[in-house]
C-alpha cells in the first residue's frame, strides 16, 4: 500500500448542529483533521465530543451542517456505509458482543469477507474460507498487540472494563481503516500498555498513513502523541492548533476553569479525570 499524501484535509466539518431537547450538544462545530495526522479532541465533560463522534460516524443525524470525508459528503450516510468507506470509530462506553468469543468479536469486524453474503457463501464457499483464514490470522496478531490473545476463546462478556477498551481498539484496527476515531481509548487501560498502543498508532501512522482522531482527557498523552489539538466547549470548537499553542490559549484555560478544572498547567487535569464511565455514549 502506498503511503498517501500527508497533507490536506481528510475530514472536514462545518457548522454542525445537534440538539437534545433544549440542550445544544453540538452548536455549530467547525473543524478539520489533516490526513495522516494524530489529532486530539479535548474539552471538559459534556463539551459535546462524543456527540460529535456520533454525528460523524452516522449514528446521529445533524440538524445542520456539512461533513465531508475524503472529499465526499457523509452527513446523510448510515453508520455501516461510513465504516465501509474507511472511517471507523470506537465507543466511549464499550460495546462488546458479550455472548460471542473475544476472537469472534475481532473476526466479525474484518472487511471484505464474501462469506457474509448468503449467496456467496453458497456459490463461492472457498473464497469465504480462504478469507476466513486470513481474518483469523490477523485477529490473532492484533489480539497479541492488545494482550488479549490468551483470552481469545473466552466470552467477551467476561472481560474487564479495561480489557473491553482494548478489544474495542483491536476490533477497529481489524477493519484496516483510513481513519480511526477513538473515544477515550486509554481510559482504564494500564499506562504501560497504553504507551505501547500509542506506539502502535504512531507506527500505523508512519507505515500506512492512518489518520487518528482521539478524544482523551489525559493531558500527558495528548501533549505527547498529538501533533494537533482541537478543543471543544459547550458544543463549539474554541481552539485548534499545535499542543503548545493550545495549552496557552486563554479561551481553553477559561473553559477548563469554568467547569472547575485547571487546564492551564499541562499536568493539572489529567490525573483527576475519572475513568470514562460517563452518562452518555
Amino acid at each position: 500500500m502506498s503511503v498517501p499524501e500527508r497533507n490536506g484535509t481528510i475530514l472536514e466539518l462545518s457548522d454542525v448542529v445537534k440538539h437534545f431537547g433544549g440542550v445544544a450538544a453540538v452548536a455549530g462545530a467547525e473543524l478539520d483533521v489533516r490526513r495522516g495526522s494524530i489529532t486530539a479532541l479535548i474539552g471538559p465533560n459534556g463539551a459535546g465530543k462524543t456527540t460529535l463522534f456520533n454525528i460523524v460516524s452516522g449514528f446521529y443525524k445533524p440538524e445542520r451542517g456539512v461533513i465531508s470525508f475524503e472529499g465526499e459528503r457523509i452527513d446523510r450516510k448510515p453508520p455501516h456505509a461510513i465504516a465501509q468507506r474507511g472511517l471507523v470509530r470506537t465507543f466511549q462506553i464499550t460495546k462488546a458482543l458479550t455472548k460471542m468469543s473475544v476472537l469472534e468479536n475481532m473476526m466479525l469486524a474484518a472487511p471484505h469477507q464474501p462469506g457474509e453474503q448468503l449467496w456467496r457463501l453458497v456459490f463461492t464457499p472457498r473464497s469465504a474460507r480462504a478469507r476466513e483464514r486470513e481474518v483469523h490470522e490477523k485477529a490473532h496478531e492484533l489480539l497479541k498487540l492488545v494482550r488479549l490473545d490468551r483470552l481469545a476463546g473466552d466470552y467477551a462478556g467476561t472481560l474487564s472494563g479495561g480489557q473491553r477498551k482494548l478489544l474495542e481498539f483491536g476490533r477497529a484496527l481489524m477493519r484496516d481503516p483510513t481513519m480511526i476515531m477513538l473515544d477515550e481509548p486509554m481510559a482504564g487501560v494500564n499506562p504501560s500498555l497504553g504507551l505501547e498502543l500509542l506506539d502502535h498508532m504512531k507506527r500505523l501512522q508512519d507505515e500506512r498513513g492512518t489518520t487518528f482522531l482521539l478524544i482523551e482527557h489525559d493531558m500527558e498523552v495528548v501533549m505527547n502523541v498529538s501533533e494537533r489539538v482541537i478543543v471543544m466547549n459547550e458544543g463549539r470548537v474554541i481552539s485548534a492548533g499545535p499542543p503548545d499553542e493550545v495549552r496557552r490559549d486563554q479561551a481553553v484555560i477559561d473553559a477548563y476553569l469554568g467547569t472547575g478544572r485547571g487546564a492551564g498547567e499541562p499536568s493539572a487535569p489529567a490525573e483527576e479525570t475519572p475513568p470514562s464511565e460517563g452518562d452518555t455514549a
Partner: protein
Amino acid sequence: MSGLANVQFWAFVGVVAGIYTIFALGLQLQFGFTGLLNFGHVAFMAIGAYTMAILVVKVEWPLWLSALVAIAVSMLFGLIIGLPTVRLRADYLAITTIAFGEIIRFIAVNQQTLTGGPQGTINLTGAGRASSYNREWLDFQGWAQDQLEVILGDHATRDLTMLVLVWIVAVVLIVLLQFMVHSPWGRVLRSVREDEDATSALGKNVFSYKLQALAVGAAIGAIAGLFFAFQFSFFSPQDFDPLTTFFAYVIVLLGGTAKNWGVPVGALIFAFIFAGTRFLDFWPLSELTSADRAFLRLIVVGLILIGLMAFRPQGIFGKKEEMVLE
C-alpha cells in the same frame, strides 16, 4: 392405557414433533440467533400451507412448483413485514408481527372464495374435494412407503413413512442452519443480536441482515406449513392461531436459545406432553370430561415453562454462563 403402547399413535406424535421442529427452527434463526421478536411466526406457516393448496386447487399447478412458490411468497411476506419495522425498536416488530399473524388468519377466514373461509380447505373447491391439494403428495408418500417396506416390511405404515420424511427434512434443515449460523453470515446475525450499534459501527448493514433473517425464517416456517398441509390433508384458519407461535417459543426456550439441536429436543418434549396428557385418565383426573382434560396440557406446558425459567433458564442445551454475561 392401551394407547401408550400404540405404535401408530407415537408415530403420529413424532410427526407432529417433526413439523414443530421445522416450524420452531425458523423462529430459532430469527429470535434465537438474530434477536428479532417475531410474535407472528404462525403467519408464515399459514402462508405456506394456504398458498400451496390454493395454487394446486385453483391454478392447477403441480404440487412441487406450488410448494416452491409458497415458500417464496412466505419469504416475500417476511420482507414486507420487516421493511417498515426492523429499523424501529424491537418492541415495534413484536407488535407488528402479532398483528400480521392475526391479519393473515382473518384473511383466511374472510376471503372465502380464495381460502375456503372458516371451514378451511374443505371448502376450497366445493364439496367432496376437501383434500384435493394433497393428491400428488399422497402419490409421493405411497412411493416412499414402498421404498420403506423394502427395509421395514409390514411396519412401514403411512404414518411411519411420514415420520421418516418429516424428520429427514428437519435434520437436513438443522444441519444447514448449523452451518449457516457458524459461517461469517451467521456471525453477523449473532452480532446483531448482541449489539446493533457495534455491528453497524463495524461496517455491517444491520437492516439488511435482519431482513435476511426474517426471510429465511419465513421460508422455514412455510416448509412447516407444507408438511402440516400434507399430514392433515385438511386445515382451517383456526389451526393458525397465535397460540401456535407461542408453542414455537416454548420449544425454542426449552431446547435452548440459539441452539439448533435444542429445537428437536424441545419439540419432542413438547409433543410428548401435548399428546401425553390424554393418558392422564386416572382418578381424580378421570372426573374431568375429556374436553376439560385437553386443557390440562396447556396448564402442564405453562408449569413446565415456569419451572424452566426458575431452574434452567438457559434451556436444556443452553450454557448457564451465557445467561449472566452483560
